[in-house]
């Protein structure tokens, strides 16, 4: 129900590297789950979706300064940093 190619494409969309040898197993297991999800087709579409269960709206904060992290705390968990910046592999 979900092809190897679909899995590969979704893998890229999710930025999770998948080996060719894994595609079949992923496709099988995911296929089983998607097949189960098929039960949703039995339900008609004539109802509004619920995005939020509580009927809250208009939650705001004032335009007032809050606490900021120190540079040290911001970079605390970064494995690669330099001169106060986060250091990433080059982006093409």
């Amino acid at each position, binding site marked *: 129900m979900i092809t190897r190619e679909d899995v590969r494409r979704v893998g890229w969309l999710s930025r999770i590297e998948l080996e060719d040898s894994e595609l079949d197993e992923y496709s099988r297991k995911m296929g089983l789950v998607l097949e189960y999800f098929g039960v949703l087709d039995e339900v008609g579409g004539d109802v509004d979706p619920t*995005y939020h269960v509580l009927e809250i709206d*208009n939650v705001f*904060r004032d*335009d007032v*300064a809050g606490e900021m992290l120190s540079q040290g705390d911001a970079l605390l968990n970064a494995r690669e940093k330099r001169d*106060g910046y*986060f250091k990433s592999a080059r982006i093409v």
Partner: protein
Amino acid sequence: MAYENRDRVKIGLEIHVQLNRLKTKIFCGCTTNYHGDPPNTHVCPVCLGLPGALPVVNRRAVEYAIRVGLALNCGINEHTQFYRKNYYYPDLPRGFQITQYDYPIAQQGHVTIEGEDGEHMVRINRAHMEEDPGRLVHEGTIDRSKYTLVDYNRSGIPLLEIVTEPDLRSPKEARRFLDKLRNIIEYLGVSDLDLEGSVRVDANVSIMDGNRTEVKNISSYKGAEKALLYEIVRQKNLIRRGKTVTQETRHFDEAREITVSIRTKEEAHDYRYFPEPDLVPLRVRDWVAKVKEELPELPDARKERFMTEYGVKAEHAKTLTGQLKLAQFFEDVVLDGVAPSMAATWIADVLKGELNYRDKTIESFKKEDLIEIIELLAENKITERSGVEIIRTLLDREGQNVPSIVKEKKLVKIESDEIDTAVKKAIEENKKAVDDYKDGKNEALNFILGSVMKKTRGRADPKKAREMIIQQIKEE
């Protein structure tokens, strides 16, 4: 005469404006005044995308967005919701940008500009709120650097994205639109557009009903015009050579003033938009009335008012209202008692030009100085030429004031005797011109007048001098 638009040029613009007059970011309390500060010093768990941190909407950001929407004659949506736009880039700390997709805050407005053939209406498709990503710094050039440095100070800065319909028909119209937009935003006080990065433009261009290309990375208004000029020529050349224009995204190289194709991964972006579960919907219809009431006077209205209230000429009104501070300067001067027509002429025709030439803003000139100059002019104590000279001196030299300049340069208008002497001398020295004048060539008079003005170092009243010249020649 309607604009032909032979090439059927269609330009649509997407302008991102930072609402940097807000004190804090759109979803957290980090301060927005990060320019000049070290990297990653205006961040918190929310805008850094730390796991577990949640966004909360800045109320004033919504007010500002409504302000802009109303100024662009848009309808403000009753129900508006933030969405997630999912994609991956190092400057995007959560792996998604919180933006608006369905239900933008403002829709379907218009702005009138001076187009190629008079007034031209540019429709606004929508204006929506979103957050700025962080900033990437490349070591060396973008294609040769081994790594990329990331600063999240900018992450979460409130942005308003304004999208036009493809109603612009030339690079000039695009430039005029951007100028108008800048003007309006300046008047609204929601953004300081002089700050670096405060405005970014993407343009969509097509000609002859062909495919359109998107041009990104335009960061100045001049750049926009150049980018569009280049792109249109490029497309025309392609068509002339029998090729078709491919639909693609191109990058504007500001330095070389060309657009370059971006060879990115083939994948069309699938942003998988869905409503942001951590943010509840906004219902802001009843804010509109209040915001509308509190809207400051906009450029067009101010221009009209200058014309009706002060009798200022249309041309002058347009120039004066073209910059908020200039308009303010004018009104301040008028409120202090100066005749509006004088003030308009001297500010729009003289002062502005002198400022532009020196790359200065109206803030470098004191209104008291202008008032003094105009007073001297009104009392006939100096000539117009002297007035100009005083302005120039004030701009070029530090710590000067009007009286001291007048004294130093002896600019007080001279008495009739001095003029009389100068006229006599000028007539003596310019026999040919006198003869030409007698022969009926009136322009020769200007030549003699010029000589008189030179001799009196501009302090003579040209009108009086002219009369005297004519008189003396007659009496010859």
